[in-house]
């Protein structure tokens, strides 16, 4: 019960907020991201939700904290990565992004973007045009987050989708994840040398994961 030598180090961590309106699949997106990190990439993750009493519409959020060490931040006030699938969410939560944090928006819905550094992808349009269904917008977003930050591998995301969803839904969702991942990767590659140098290293390379 009493630890002999308590470890006082606070492990590096990345806090991600996924925001939008109820019904956009943000809770599932957070769950897949956390599962990929915690189960398939050997990291630790805490995922929490916040939503109103409504079934659809209304503000909806899902938050994930990922770290190679212990995670004791069950809820954060400030986030390193902010995903906004609606304009309302972007307006409400942009201030919760830390200095130098990355904003990722669905430019189909978010037309007024508060920073020029945001990763803007027309996620809903991509979902409809390339996957044939708007419901996978959430997984395009998860793919995009990881394609940009590299904190969770594409393989882990695919494994998490395969283990969490019904078999007949897997191909469409895997396609969406890969699509988002590739689009974000391309976005980073197309950045100017200077801008790319300013992007924080979100991967946990060089840190020891605790089991």
């Amino acid at each position, binding site marked *: 019960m009493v630890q002999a030598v308590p470890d006082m180090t606070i492990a590096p961590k990345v806090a991600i907020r996924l925001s939008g309106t109820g019904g956009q699949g943000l809770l599932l997106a957070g769950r897949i991201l956390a599962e990929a990190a915690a189960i398939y990439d050997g990291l630790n993750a805490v995922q929490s939700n916040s939503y109103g009493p409504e079934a659809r519409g209304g503000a909806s959020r899902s938050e994930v904290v990922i770290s190679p060490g212990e995670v004791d*931040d*069950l809820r*954060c006030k400030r986030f390193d990565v902010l995903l906004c699938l609606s304009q309302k969410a972007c307006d409400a939560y942009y201030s919760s992004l830390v200095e130098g944090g990355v904003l990722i928006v669905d430019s189909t819905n978010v037309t007024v973007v508060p920073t020029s550094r945001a990763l803007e992808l027309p996620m809903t349009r991509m979902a409809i045009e390339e996957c044939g269904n708007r419901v996978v917008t959430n997984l395009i977003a998860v793919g995009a987050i990881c394609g940009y930050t590299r904190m969770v591998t594409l393989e882990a995301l695919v494994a998490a989708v395969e283990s969490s969803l019904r078999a007949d839904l897997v191909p469409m969702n895997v396609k969406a994840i890969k699509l988002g991942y590739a689009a974000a990767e391309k976005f980073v590659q197309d950045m100017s040398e200077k801008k790319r140098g300013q992007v924080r290293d979100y991967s946990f390379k060089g840190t020891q994961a605790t089991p």
Partner: protein
Amino acid sequence: MSIKTGVPLLLSGNEAVAYGALAAGAKFYGGYPITPSTEIAEVMAAELPRIGGKFIQMEDEIASLGAVIGASIAGLKSFTATSGPGFSLMQEHIGFAAMAEVPCVIVDVMRGGPSTGLPTKTSQSDVMQAKYGSHGDYPSIAIAPSSVMECFTLTVKAFNLSEKYRIPVIILSDEIVGHMREKVILPGPDEIEVIDRMQPEVPPEWYQHYADTITGVSPMANFGEGYRFHITGLTHDVSGFPTERSDETTALLEKFRNKENHNTHDLLMVDEFCMEDADFCIVAYGSVGRSARQAVKMLRQEGVKAGMIRPQILWPFPKFPVENMLERVSHVLVPEMNVGQLRKEVERLACMPRGMIQGLNVLDPSFITAEQIHDKAMEMISKQK
């Protein structure tokens, strides 16, 4: 259980409570859905029929706990889950279960109150209700998990204590612990200690449902198996029939009190973090215990000798570790998502100057972060200087 053991899984606290109940041998769930506890009912509805158990959705929370008590009397490990409004409705039957000495487990996933309050937001405001919610002097056990893994292990513990002492046990979870997902590795059946209620060793004609025994706990026969007994909410004698004889009524209340008093060691479960040399103690429980743990690390990095006492069993209150701590430290901070329910319990044990024990009482349903606890601690220390 149709869930894998021994491999990492990403589970929510509510799911872990449900699987903990199954691991402890729960065979009956009677409940009425309510946010933020409904996932427990969902898992039980899916799992119980597969193992020959019974799931029933009742018309309300009063009936839910009634069904649970009935199933338990018939011999099944039974439980229910609810949140504040439903927990209020269950108080009458909690008193009945304590009086009739029926083992059962009640999960209260706390949300903002009073009344229907904030259905989807967290709170810790049912702490005193878990202790004193029903009328009369009855023994209370309440358990507060702070991680998904504890939701599993402490649920097993709750069933074990309930069966061992023939007493209702309350699990005080909260919306954050219930809904968050974390990585857990569930232990297999042979790694879990499961306690079953003591069965009578006497022939049916000698059986007394409330027999006076050396342990203070009466063996309990399953209803319908040939042992005749009477159950009432009235004060009763060892046979279960009402009595007003002062020696018998006093003995009954003494028996209840002794379930706590004679088993303080068994009912003591606290997580002490960095307390060996601590001068500043944070007393926290449930989800806030996690922020407190992180706050201790932050304070230690700044040279403050901080530590944490986190009662895992909240009721009976861990008197001895807290008293021991109060003799050693100069400050105590009790962060809670209520107006200071557990702080008063700490203050009751203390003879410290005014202001040395303070609360951080956040009523904003967005939770208490480690930074807030850290800042409050620094404020307390700087004021003293």
